[in-house]
């Protein structure tokens, strides 16, 4: 087995093609870096990852290179010796290698790497404005972290700093604080390699290097928000998040994006029950390292002032708020009446989690075996958007990122539940002209158009309509009962993406004060007692439907492929 020695600790690298940073990572040693990113090409321009390397010969002698080398650009092979600046914090249990006498020249191993890192940082900070108090990145800034860990405590710079003007015109969504940039060019490489649209470039030379766009071609592509995540310092800022919160107030919840059927893994950063931003969470099975802008900035519906926040009942043509204690028995009676007459139609939207869909299906089928379960309107907008693209906007093979046309997270999951209960899946379009005695519309759509597009313009309500949704729509206006739905940030559950990858996630924020989660409502209507726990329902679901059997235990962080 090929073995690499990182600060004397032997690491087996298997057949992987690794560089020094990755090999050190396997040994639990952090090699600080700015320009290196796993998903991007290597340029070795920041010089932060300088390490000392050498080779351990089969006879045990060690030969070291006389210069420090960038770790990101240096591949490792069997016998490679990597000495980082953290050598003095190495694992004491590791047996020291037999370093040659002329290697350290009287010093200690790792001292040169350490000094190189400190010098690099000093160079990066020469023109950095150090305006951390007003910088949005402060608190999650790699320049702060590494300066603290590896840098000098004070600056020797006596001249005026070079402060080029900011570039808010870079994009409608992104602004550039030019003076904070350390020229790692991650953003430039992202637009060239991942989105392929190549809007960003480096202009100028040396001290006067700047990130810029070509005249008249702003950074407008559907993956542009990722450059904000990629920026290791506070140079690129999202205008949407700019000055909204300091990052140390934010709590990150691991969630799944609900805006298309790719089901990207995201962090939902929230504070005091308000979602402030979404950032990409690495998941090789779903989205890789990045997310699209529709998902990233598509959380505003949850904070919308228009949201339905309390249950309402129509009395004499006007909506009146109804407390849950009165509403739940009312709904129970309505459901029982409709079930008796065989006119119960339940629409389960593809925005429900599989747990919610399962519990609702159990509820309605339990009331009457004749109850019809329908898959709610599946919003489809345009066609799948494939990346990378070329500069003219045509997709280029091989595809690395797809923004799906199907703008819902869980069609496959809900379909699987419906197929289990009814044998087949009926799309909503087939029943929209039916006139059931009671239609229960379990929505949760983040956009009004999703719902309204599914109803013909001359549609009128027949019988009783129970509409459960996030935003007021034409349907909620003609409903008898309007129940607030919860956004995906506000629930625990599981989504199954377009490829059958089931990802579980936990709640980030709490739903509006008077809203009840779909699971809680289903519990109440089923007359179940005890704590409402998505995990318990998931176990029940896994036992009932064979396809979901892999969800019975703990689901891995990256999700689990169903039906494989």
């Amino acid at each position, binding site marked *: 087995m090929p073995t690499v020695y990182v600060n004397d600790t032997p690491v087996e690298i298997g057949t992987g093609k690794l560089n020094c940073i990755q090999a050190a990572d396997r040994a639990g040693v952090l090699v600080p870096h700015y320009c290196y990113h796993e998903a991007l090409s290597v340029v070795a321009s920041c010089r932060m990852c300088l390490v000392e390397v050498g080779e351990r010969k089969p006879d045990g002698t060690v030969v070291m290179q006389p210069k420090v080398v960038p770790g990101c650009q240096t591949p490792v092979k069997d016998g490679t010796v990597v000495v980082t600046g953290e050598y003095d914090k190495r694992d004491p249990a590791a047996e020291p290698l037999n370093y040659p006498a002329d290697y350290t020249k009287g010093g200690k191993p790792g001292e040169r790497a350490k000094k190189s890192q400190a010098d690099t940082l000093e160079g990066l900070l020469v023109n950095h*404005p*150090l*305006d*951390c*108090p*007003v910088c949005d990145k402060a608190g999650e800034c790699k320049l702060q972290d590494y300066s603290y860990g590896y840098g000098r405590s*004070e*600056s*020797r*710079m*006596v*001249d005026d700093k070079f402060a080029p003007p*900011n570039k808010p015109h870079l994009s409608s969504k992104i602004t550039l*604080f030019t003076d904070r940039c350390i020229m790692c060019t991650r953003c430039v490489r992202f637009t060239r390699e991942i989105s392929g649209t190549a809007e960003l470039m480096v202009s100028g030379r040396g001290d006067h290097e700047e990130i810029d766009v070509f005249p008249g071609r702003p950074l407008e592509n559907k993956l542009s928000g990722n450059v904000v995540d990629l920026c290791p310092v506070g140079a690129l800022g999202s205008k949407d998040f*700019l*000055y*909204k919160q*300091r990052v*140390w*107030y934010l709590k990150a919840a691991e969630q799944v994006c609900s805006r298309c059927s790719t089901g990207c893994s995201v962090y939902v950063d929230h504070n005091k029950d308000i979602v402030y931003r979404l950032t990409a969470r690495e998941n090789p099975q779903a989205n890789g390292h990045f997310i699209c802008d529709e998902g990233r900035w598509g959380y505003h519906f949850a904070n919308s002032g228009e949201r339905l926040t309390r249950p309402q009942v129509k009395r004499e043509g006007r909506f009146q708020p109804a407390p849950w204690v009165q509403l739940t028995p009312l709904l129970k009676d309505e459901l029982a009446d409709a079930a008796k007459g065989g006119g119960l139609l339940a629409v389960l939207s593809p925005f429900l989690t599989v747990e919610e869909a399962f519990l609702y299906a159990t509820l309605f089928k339990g009331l009457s075996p004749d109850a019809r379960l329908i898959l709610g309107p599946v919003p489809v907008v345009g066609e799948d958007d494939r990346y990378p693209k070329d500069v003219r906007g045509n997709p280029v093979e091989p595809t690395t990122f797809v923004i799906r046309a199907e703008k819902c997270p869980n069609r496959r999951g809900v379909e699987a539940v419906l197929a289990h209960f009814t044998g087949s899946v009926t799309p909503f379009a087939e029943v929209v002209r039916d006139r059931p005695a009671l239609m229960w519309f379990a929505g949760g759509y983040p956009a009004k158009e999703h719902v309204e597009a599914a109803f013909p313009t001359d549609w009128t309500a027949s019988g009783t309509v129970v509409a459960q949704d996030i935003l007021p729509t034409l349907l909620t206006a003609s409903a008898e009962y309007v129940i607030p739905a919860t956004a995906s940030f506000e629930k625990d559950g599981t989504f199954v993406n377009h490829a059958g990858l089931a990802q579980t996630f936990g709640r980030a924020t709490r739903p509006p004060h008077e809203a009840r989660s779909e699971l809680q409502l289903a519990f109440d209507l089923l007359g179940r007692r005890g704590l409402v726990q998505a995990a318990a329902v998931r176990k029940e679901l896994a036992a009932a439907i064979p396809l979901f059997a892999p969800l019975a235990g703990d689901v891995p962080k990256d999700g689990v492929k169903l039906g494989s």
Partner: protein
Amino acid sequence: MALAESDVKWVDAPKLGFWEQLYLPALVDGVRTTVGHMFGKKLTEQYPEQEPKLPPNYRGVHRLNRDEAGRVKCVACYMCATACPAHCIDIVAAPAPPEWRDREKYPETFVIDELRCIYCGMCEEACPVDAIELTTLYDLTGLSREQMVFDKEKLLSVFDTTTAAGTDPVRTRAGRLSPSSEPPPAR
């Protein structure tokens, strides 16, 4: 946990002797203290007729300092709100008006709940631009809780009144962004 008998130590009151039983020595001792104070230095402060002179580092009502152009000096960095142990500071930041060329960020609102505040001075300590200071105003009163929630205008008006009255001159350096962003002193 109940006390163990072995942990208890019983003490008897000392027995009074003949001299103590007379009470006269104690009486004389008390009268001597009283009379001594009648002719000694007067310590009583005649508040509110006479107001005390407080040291300049007294921690009273907050103020928000203005810069030379009369703008609020605060850059809305939330350091004070983060440092505040009572969570009494609420800031809403916004991009600075475009005509403020030296700033990117300013506080749209800046609210301190003076009732929640414990006057510890951490906010002053944390401020990187010396924008928030505690003044020597100590007699803070209000007729309602709402009156005791000071907004930006009120905090700036505290600056105006205290500097005009000369009770609290701006005692901190006219802050640029932070000491670390400035060149080291010339050797």
